[in-house]
């Protein structure tokens, strides 16, 4: 940390030509490619959200037409879920960090990694094309028979776009799994791995096992539209609820694709900024796997009022409660880690606090939804909207931003401005709560989701929510601006600005193309801040 210059040779400056970026197989450069792409998608998704909130200020819905409004929330959901949040942490931080954290030169299949990005971009283009050439209005859930028989928008095109992007997800997951299994440096046993890797492994598992089912489901929808096959068509005896089964077989586990990486980041942040080993390391590690496995057994909780058998609903509700337990374990272990730690209030740590808090609220309201008799009332109301935004915006995005700030010095070699960063974090936190807390109340009062016009008694809370969304939008702009600024003007960070443990901090910032000058040999467990000797264990 003595020198105030960037390392002469690093992955960013080996070659400046565009070609060298577009044909790179370096996992760190691929991270940057993804970072740019998903930021763009976030901005698009955010623009739709802005329109939604603007329109909802007025209960009569005069700003846009009904059709337009329906397209707005559909495209907002599709873009935010499939093109922003699902790839967010895995494809950026995961790509950057997995090889570094296990002491490898690259992921197992570097070319495939690049191919995944191209596949992702292709899928994105299809979806954007669907959007520009008229939009889609099915909701991100594509329920049949509306999507197959009724809607006359670009459903097939959007479905194909998601289908294609799905393969990027599958291949990334596959790549990560093989990398973690086979590319670990000598001495890096499973139980010496940072918890971020456990969470990425769990996430990859879900991507690999769930995404193909989404792919085939959307393919069936497209086939039904284009080829007039009849799989879900009620007039031929098809069952629309079957579509929901297949869709949620992926899409429930997918919500864990979106949160588990954030949990992994939070584990890293909590450990690094309290300079302490995570309390109950093994429990947190196995909780990730438990979520991944149990997460596949609860999809029916989206179908409680949809025509599911009531007995089956009971089983799904029970299992939904069980899947909450590993999440609870994580939350408690993070909290306990702070005990007798050396807690710093750096911006990433603020995001970690935000994550835990917002995730707890979002998660606990998930218990309301898993409660059968209560879900009958709150299903498809703003209560659900608030639930998942608390987890996905309050939780996952805060985790993502926290991770981005924490590893920013490693990725770019420069520090972000701390004061501005704290301001940004605070603005986001306040704006977020102002936007989404009123929606819980709205939901319980009975305001249905996907409503363009609504009864006037809901207006006050909607206005409050829209006001919050403006604050939130500004909040997101702050990091965007100062992170860009720091690329050129930020102070040089040095190898390990946080005094953190972990292989990624042992190499230069930004790291060289092959990550490490020599392949590291690991001799201690993760987060060994106290410098303990390890009791011998075979991995």
């Amino acid at each position, binding site marked *: 940390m003595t020198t105030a210059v960037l390392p002469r040779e690093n992955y960013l400056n080996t070659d400046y030509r565009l070609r060298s970026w577009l044909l790179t*197989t370096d996992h760190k450069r691929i991270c940057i490619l993804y970072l740019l792409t998903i930021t763009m998608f976030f901005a698009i998704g955010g623009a739709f959200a802005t329109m939604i909130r603007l329109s909802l200020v007025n209960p009569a819905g005069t700003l846009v037409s009904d059709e337009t409004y329906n397209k707005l929330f559909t495209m907002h959901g599709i873009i935010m879920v499939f093109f922003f949040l699902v790839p967010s942490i895995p494809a950026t931080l995961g790509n950057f960090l997995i090889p570094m954290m296990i002491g*490898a*030169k*690259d992921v*197992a*299949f*570097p*070319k*495939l990694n690049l191919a995944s990005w191209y596949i992702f971009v292709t899928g994105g283009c299809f979806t954007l094309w669907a959007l520009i050439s008229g939009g889609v209005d099915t909701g991100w859930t594509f329920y049949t028979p509306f999507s197959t028989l009724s809607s006359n928008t670009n459903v097939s095109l959007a479905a194909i776009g998601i289908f294609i992007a799905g393969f990027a997800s*599958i291949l990334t997951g*596959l*790549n990560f*799994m*093989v990398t973690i*299994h*086979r*590319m670990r440096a000598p001495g890096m046993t499973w139980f010496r791995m940072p918890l971020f890797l456990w969470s990425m492994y769990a996430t990859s598992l879900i991507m*690999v*096992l*769930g*995404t*193909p*089912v989404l*792919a*085939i*489901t959307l393919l*069936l929808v497209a*086939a039904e539209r284009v*080829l*007039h*096959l*009849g*799989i879900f*068509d009620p*007039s*031929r*005896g*098809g*069952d629309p609820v*079957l579509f929901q*089964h*297949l869709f949620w*077989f992926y899409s429930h586990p997918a919500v864990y694709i979106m949160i588990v990486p954030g949990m992994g980041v939070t584990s890293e942040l909590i450990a690094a900024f309290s300079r302490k080993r995570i309390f109950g390391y093994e429990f947190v590690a196995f909780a990730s796997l438990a979520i991944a496995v149990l997460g596949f057994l609860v999809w029916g909780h989206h179908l409680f009022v949809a025509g599911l058998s009531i007995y089956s609903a009971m089983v799904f509700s029970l299992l939904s409660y069980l899947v909450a337990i590993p999440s609870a374990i994580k939350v408690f272990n993070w909290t306990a880690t702070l005990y007798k730690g050396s807690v710093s209030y750096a911006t990433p740590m603020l995001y970690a606090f935000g994550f835990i808090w917002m995730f707890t609220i979002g998660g606990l309201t998930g218990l309301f939804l898993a409660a059968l008799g209560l879900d009958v009332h709150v299903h498809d109301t703003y209560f659900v909207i608030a639930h998942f935004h608390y987890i996905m915006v309050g939780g996952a995005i805060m985790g993502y931003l926290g991770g981005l700030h924490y590893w920013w010095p490693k990725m770019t070699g420069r520090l972000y401005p701390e004061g501005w960063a704290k301001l940004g974090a605070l603005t986001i936190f306040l704006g977020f709560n102002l936007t989404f807390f009123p929606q819980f109340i709205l939901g319980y009062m009975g305001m249905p989701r996907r409503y363009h016009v609504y009864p006037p008694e809901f207006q006050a809370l909607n206005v409050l929510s829209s006001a919050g969304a403006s604050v939130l939008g500004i909040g997101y702009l702050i990091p965007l601006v100062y992170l860009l600024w720091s690329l050129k003007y930020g102070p040089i960070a040095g190898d390990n600005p946080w005094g953190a443990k972990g292989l990624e901090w042992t190499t230069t910032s930004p790291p060289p193309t*092959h990550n490490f000058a020599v392949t590291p040999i690991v001799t201690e467990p993760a987060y060994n801040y106290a410098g303990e000797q390890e009791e011998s264990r075979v991995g």
Partner: protein
Amino acid sequence: MTSQAAVAPPRALQHHFDSLEQQRDVATLGMWIFLVTEALFFGGLFTAYLVYRSMYPHAFAVASEHTLIALGAANTAILITSSLTMALAVHAAQEGNQKSIIRFLVFTFLLGTAFLVLKGVEYTVDMRDHLLPGANFAIAGANPGHAEIFFSLYFIMTGLHAIHMIVGLSLLVVIMYMTSKGRFSKEYHAPVEVMGLYWHFVDIIWIFLFPLLYLIDRHK
């Protein structure tokens, strides 16, 4: 890859691996995981099939009698044989026998093509018999809607299987080309092996499709 410069390690070794052993291991593991995703991909269709068969057993039985069992059975035999030749190609690769690899790959390719040709013939007959779901669909003895669901599944399942065959044939061509360039040896033949895994998997899918689509209630 980029490491042509390195002299000592074998040419096929990519820069980020320590040994060919690791590289091969990684390739097979990757392929197996990919096949898991393929299994779940078809799994969605099998689920739909199971649901509807349990709802409409009668219509499925009647509709299934309209499939061409002779062609289906012949195709099953063809695919099994192609799996044998594929296995023998991998065997040849393990022994480093270039000529045998090519020979068995060509057999596999021809058998695969034969499968697709027969399938094409079958589709033509099916369409002639008004079994393609849509306006022209007609069937006697069963609820037409339910039978249409059967044939929707039939066409989707066999169609996706056929697409997998086509992908497999294209990959075969690539592997044949690589073999002819002398890329493979006793020590390094991971691509042939991985190709084999894929091919066998496509065979397995058919092993299930055949009884599910062709063999319901033939005894009537």
